């Protein structure tokens, strides 16, 4: 067992998957010799060769499209898009082909591919490098959308994503790539997809979040505990399909829910969770569901970035509001 950060855990999972299964290949821009701009693929080409760790030309639609071709032919491609801001050319391929190859051939062909991309703000990156548009992918039938929030979950969820026979969009919150280290046993054990992880038990309010915001949310829970308020924290982890059972069970217990996400507010995943809470959990709720989110604005460039990002203070304010109902 070794202490690793999130990006190292991604690297470990990739290496493990490639060692276990010859059909796993890695491709993308600068993933080979350079080991990826965030070093997520460092050492893989040395170890597994350039035929399995492929530096592609700078062509995102092609990266997604050729992954589909490879997957249909029995490989398990893990493609990297360098930043989420450059993922949009892949949408055509993901929406029109990856998500529906199994369905449109009635299972004759399918698409076991993973598209990885770093995402989210808070690292003072250049324009286009900081957005969180996970809801766009969650809206597409046939795609899984997975967001790890800690090294151990990155390792186990990425292994599960690679082994899954269907396409997975794996979004890595780059703000926490190197934020904390955890002991991760490189034992090849995967974590389940399609389920939420309860990170902290509580009885007064349920805080639902994912990605980098898990850390602000856990800090808020600490602060609440100091005030004698018991907050349950749920890391959604797989945004699509969404495990509402875990969230509903928690809200049944606490009666209050605050959803925290960095993405813009309107039609974000928080809206879907809140809608399902109103459909299925209304009788458990003692207060309106609150959302702490980014604004419906363009993500500011680094000098103004902090104005946009949800903060511990904003989470605490919303929790205070929902606790005022009794």
């Amino acid at each position: 067992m070794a202490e690793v950060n999130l990006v190292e855990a991604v690297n470990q999972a990739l290496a493990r998957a490639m060692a276990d299964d010859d059909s796993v290949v890695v491709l993308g821009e600068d993933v080979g010799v350079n080991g990826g701009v965030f070093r997520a693929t460092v050492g893989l080409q040395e170890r597994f060769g350039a035929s399995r760790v492929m530096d592609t030309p700078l062509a995102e639609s092609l990266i997604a499209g050729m992954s589909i071709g490879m997957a249909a032919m029995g490989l398990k491609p893990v493609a990297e898009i360098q930043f989420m801001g450059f993922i949009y050319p892949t949408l055509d391929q993901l929406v029109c082909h990856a998500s529906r190859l199994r369905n449109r051939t009635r299972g004759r062909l399918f698409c076991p591919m993973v598209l990885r991309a770093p995402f989210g703000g808070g690292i003072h990156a250049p324009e286009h490098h900081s957005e969180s548009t996970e809801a766009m992918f969650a809206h597409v039938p046939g795609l899984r959308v997975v967001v790890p929030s800690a090294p151990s979950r990155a390792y186990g969820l990425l292994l599960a994503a690679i082994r899954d026979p269907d396409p997975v969009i794996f979004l890595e919150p780059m703000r926490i790539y190197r934020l904390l280290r955890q002991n991760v046993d490189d034992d090849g054990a995967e974590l389940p997809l399609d389920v939420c992880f309860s990170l902290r038990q509580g009885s007064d309010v349920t805080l639902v979040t994912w990605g980098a915001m898990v850390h602000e949310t856990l800090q808020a829970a600490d602060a609440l505990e100091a005030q004698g308020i018991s907050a349950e924290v749920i890391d959604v982890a797989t945004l699509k399909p969404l495990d509402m059972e875990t969230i509903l069970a928690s809200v049944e217990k606490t009666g209050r829910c605050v959803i925290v996400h960095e993405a813009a507010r309107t039609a974000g995943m928080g809206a879907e969770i809140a809608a399902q809470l109103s459909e299925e959990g209304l009788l458990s709720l003692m207060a309106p569901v609150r959302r702490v989110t980014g604004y419906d604005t363009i993500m500011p460039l680094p000098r103004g970035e902090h104005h946009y990002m949800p903060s511990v203070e904003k989470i605490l304010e919303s929790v205070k509001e929902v606790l005022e109902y009794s």
Partner: protein
Amino acid sequence: MDGPTGGVEPGGPRNEAAVRRSKLITRHAKGEVRLCHVKTAMKRVAEFCIEFVRFLDENGAPQSALPPGLAEKETLVAMYRLMALTRALDAKAIALQRTGQLGTYASCLGQEAVGAGVGFAMRPEDVLVPSYREQAAQLARGVTPAELLLYWGGDERGSDFSGPRHDFPIAVPIGTQTCHAVGAAAACKLRGEARAVVSCCGDGATSKGDFYESINLAGAWRLPVVFVVVNNQWAISVPRSLQSGAETLAQKAIAGGFEGLQVDGNDPLAVRWSVDRALAKARDGGGPTLIEALTYRIHDHTTADDASRYRSEAEVEAARARDPLLRTRRYIDLAGYWSDDEEAALKEHLASVVQEAVDTYLATPPPGPEAMFDYLFARLPGPLARQRARALGTPGDG
């Protein structure tokens, strides 16, 4: 430095580089004209001719001695029969659509020779990545007429076809499939398999980024892929002349670093010979080839289109005179491989084959509501299982 050097003398003579002095005329605001002398270093990096392959002229007469093995009776007759089947099925599909029994349909009338050439050149283990007008190639590969009707009739089961199970389903979004083809070719190459991929697209697709991204990668990685560009002269209403300033679409391969050629797409022998040659090269590690097959879309773009809005009847009539079936028929007549009796028997046979396909298609019950859930994922996630139950009206769930 190989490009224009802005008047700076390049650092000495170099291989294949010719330094030449050119006169540039610059115009200044005052309107005075000044002659400037600029030295540029010119390096010849590409020089190309586009080969044009044709064996049978428009009357079905061989233009030259046919390559050995290409004109064997059995194969020629089989290709002719396939083209005739494609046409009979195509006509029936249009008739079914006009009578409300089929969905919007994209006719391949006039393009049958391309598919026949592709289909007969490929081996079963090769991989076809088709666009939506490759009925002939699909039929040649083993997709059944009933499966084609099922697809165009609006049923996913049409793409669960009996042809080679590894062949790709047709791609509707233009040119997207070229990326799948290079991915499939990369998979073949990675596994060291002696098989190759044929990517079919139309002239319209060559305007798209996916096409350029694909030929770029195919050239850089020397992938075992053959790009067949079926140039039927029209991207719905936009003629070839307005789609690209390039003299040929074949020459787009040159920028990708590999060979591009044109074939007479109404000559099935030319298509077959060219694709065969390109596939052999691909399987042998020689990399990609782009084959621009010149043909004509005689029918409307689809049954939802009216081509008379944008092209003249005279143009279509001229194209009919170059009909690939007539040409092939004339050749096999000429060669003594075919008779009027055989033609009559074929017509009768095809009518029953097509009718049988129609019967099979129409007798296939539409899919139930469970079908849209059951093939979405290998294992159905919980939320979808509940939606499925709701769609099926299963009591006590969802």
